[in-house]
């Protein structure tokens, strides 16, 4: 296993962002992404899981918010993303032509973890093709934590491995997650990984577009809804 030789800083796993940016808290990233995913059409539970995925990636310096936004935009064009993967021994595929939703794939991998078709009994698993595969990584991390063993995703000679502590080992400095098939496997324990920490920025254009989705979960103002807020009497006293 080769450890990236880049120094331990925020951009060790992703190149620095360009353009106007805002530094968010992790709570803000998760909350915004949850609402955006819901506004884009995901059910509440899946939207929570999308928020978790984006937040986990953000905390490690990946541009999870942009990847999620790209996926939410893709969802508006194709309805195929609301289908769960076909779960078969050793190979999980999209039920129709096209790619899998990375969130649905991620949660299904977690759900099936200890079942016959899942990672523990049936791995390594070939999965895909999946849209925005980076968004699957946090779910592999969740499984690694549960199993207390590292989980690896590998494609075309590249790989990223996540330990049970949520640390990362990658084959290259800036792994580029190819859309297509990849393999998920349980790996041997490693003695080290890296976990970039700190607060990360989100591009303002990304924020703005995520907010456009998030606002769809709200209700337009009206006199009635102002009355629903609470203060029926003067509150300046």
């Amino acid at each position, binding site marked *: 296993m080769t450890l990236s030789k880049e120094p331990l800083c925020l951009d060790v796993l992703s190149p620095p962002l360009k353009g106007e940016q*805002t*530094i*968010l*808290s*992790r*709570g*803000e990233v998760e*909350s915004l992404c949850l609402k955006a995913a819901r506004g884009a059409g995901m*059910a*509440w*539970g*899946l939207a*929570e*899981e999308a928020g*978790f995925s984006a937040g986990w990636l953000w905390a490690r310096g990946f541009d999870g918010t942009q990847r999620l936004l790209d996926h939410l935009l893709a969802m508006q064009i194709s309805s195929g993303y*609301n289908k*769960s*993967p076909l*779960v078969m021994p050793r190979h999980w595929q999209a039920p129709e032509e096209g790619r899998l939703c990375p969130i*649905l794939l991620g*949660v*299904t991998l*977690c*759900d*099936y*973890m*200890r*079942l016959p078709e*899942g990672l523990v009994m049936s791995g390594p698993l070939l999965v895909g093709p999946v849209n925005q595969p980076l968004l699957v990584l946090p779910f592999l991390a*969740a499984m690694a934590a*549960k199993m207390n063993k590292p989980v690896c995703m590998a494609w075309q000679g590249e790989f990223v491995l996540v330990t049970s502590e949520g640390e990362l080992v990658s084959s290259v400095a800036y792994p580029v997650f190819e859309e297509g098939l990849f393999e998920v496997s349980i790996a041997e324990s490693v003695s080290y990984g890296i976990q970039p920490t700190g*607060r990360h920025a989100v591009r303002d254009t990304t924020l703005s577009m995520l907010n456009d989705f998030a*606002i*769809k*979960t*709200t*209700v*337009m*103002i009206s006199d*009635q*809804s*102002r*009355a*629903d*807020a*609470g*203060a*029926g*009497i003067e*509150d*300046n*006293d």
Partner: protein
Amino acid sequence: MNNIKAIEPRPPKEVMRLKRMGAAHPTRLSFLRVMLNRMILENWKFDRPIWCLNEEGVGYAVYRAIGPARTYSLVAFSHNIPDHMRSDRVIATAWDATFTLFDGTPTEADLSRLSRNVPYQEAGRILASELSLSRANRSVRLFRYVVACLAAGQQPDVQEIEDVGYLMRTTAVYGSGKFGAADYRDLRARPEMAAPFQAEMLSVWLIRQFSVDVVEHMAFCQGGDSAVKLAPHIKHILGVGNSTGLGMAPFIVRHQILLNNWVESREQALAAVRSLPSVSLQKTRSLQVAFSQFRLNVCKWKTKHDLQVGKLNDLQDDIEKIGDRLKIFPGTSPLPWDELWQWGEQTLTCEGQEALLALLLEPHGELIDSLDSLMSADEEAEFLIDGKMSVKELKDILVTKYDWALAIDFSVPESHSRFWYVSEEKLEPRFGQRTQEDEFSKEQPLCIGRLASSLDEALKPWPQDASIASFLRELPEHRYMVRRAQIANRHPYSEIQDNLIADDLIPLDMLRFKLAFLGASHFDPKSDKWLRICLFQGAAYPLDLTPQEISL
């Protein structure tokens, strides 16, 4: 003695009903008390290194809380807004004072950055070096009156003070990640931040100091040499007010494990006290003192709203009964505390019982204070759904933990006539009547009872031994409720066992419950959706703090 049955905590079906949750009283396990206890036990020091306000009370100040390992600073910006701009609503854009709690001692550069952001509240940004963001407005009734009295060399009338209870009231205190603040997960390893809402409580306590300081400052600016400071007995009565609206209600539904841990800790505390086989004279006295203070407190509790007037009457009647009963405490029972408790269950209303609970806990700090370490939650650790669980096991969970939900007929209009949503205008939670135009997709997922009911329905055609993984693969729209049900299975007090979209739901009950855990006293509802409360009445002031002062 060996035959005495172990006393169990009260069961969820009794305790997790809004009727009882809405009668909650603050206990010594409240987050405000936890914060104050630590300040005293660890001998924290307090100072005010900066005070820069002009004659109109405009400017800024810095207060510091200096602990054994770390220092926290309240940075306060004081403004002068015209009366018509003052509002407690989330839609306000200007306030009498704005605050942030800074991690450490702020430099000039920090203060400069904060002055460009904090006064704008939600329209500004703060960083991970800030732990809370808040704002407060003056009490129009009291503030000017007190300034005028002090300026003229007189103390304000005690009755006027008691009628309001505060000089300033916070209209929001944001923490944990909001608007850029530090995330709780990054703070929870610090002992002083581990319990819930510690940063928020510290902020409000320092704001109380500020509210007195600014009033005295204005009095001196107005009255010069003839002005006086507030007398200690008047300062003592003053707390920090707060206007609490619906924003707090979704919190206790969303944070299932946290809710469970708060209630479970409190119930364990009660069971532990009830199990005590003896009573010392010191404990009896302590109980009497707690009762006297509580009775005094309730006498001053003023409210005009129908909802509260009835409860207050119940409470006042119950207080008299408790007073009489305490005259024969401890008596000769082998379990005197339990005997008192059981008397309360048989004799008092909900309000009285929950008040009695608080009284029973009060003398037993050494027994129960350590339970505060169990009141926070690692929600991340339980986020994963257990896909291996069988359909049968999940059905069993619904039948045993959600029986209250399955008993509700949601097809009947009164069972689903209300609607939780978030307004586009200010992104605040609202609670209204469901209309035909209300899109189901915009409904906030707070109607847990109905979701449980739908899940139960969806599970019916599935084979018993099918995995939940296969069920969710087919019907991913149930992930939210499945996760909740699995959490509820491990955490008995994690669900409010009432229909949150019923016609007769009173959101106030949810607000009061959370406020009691924060440590609020004096619940004063203004409608069924918002209320005024007071924090820190009767407590010491940070700049006055001496080791002997005990908080209330």
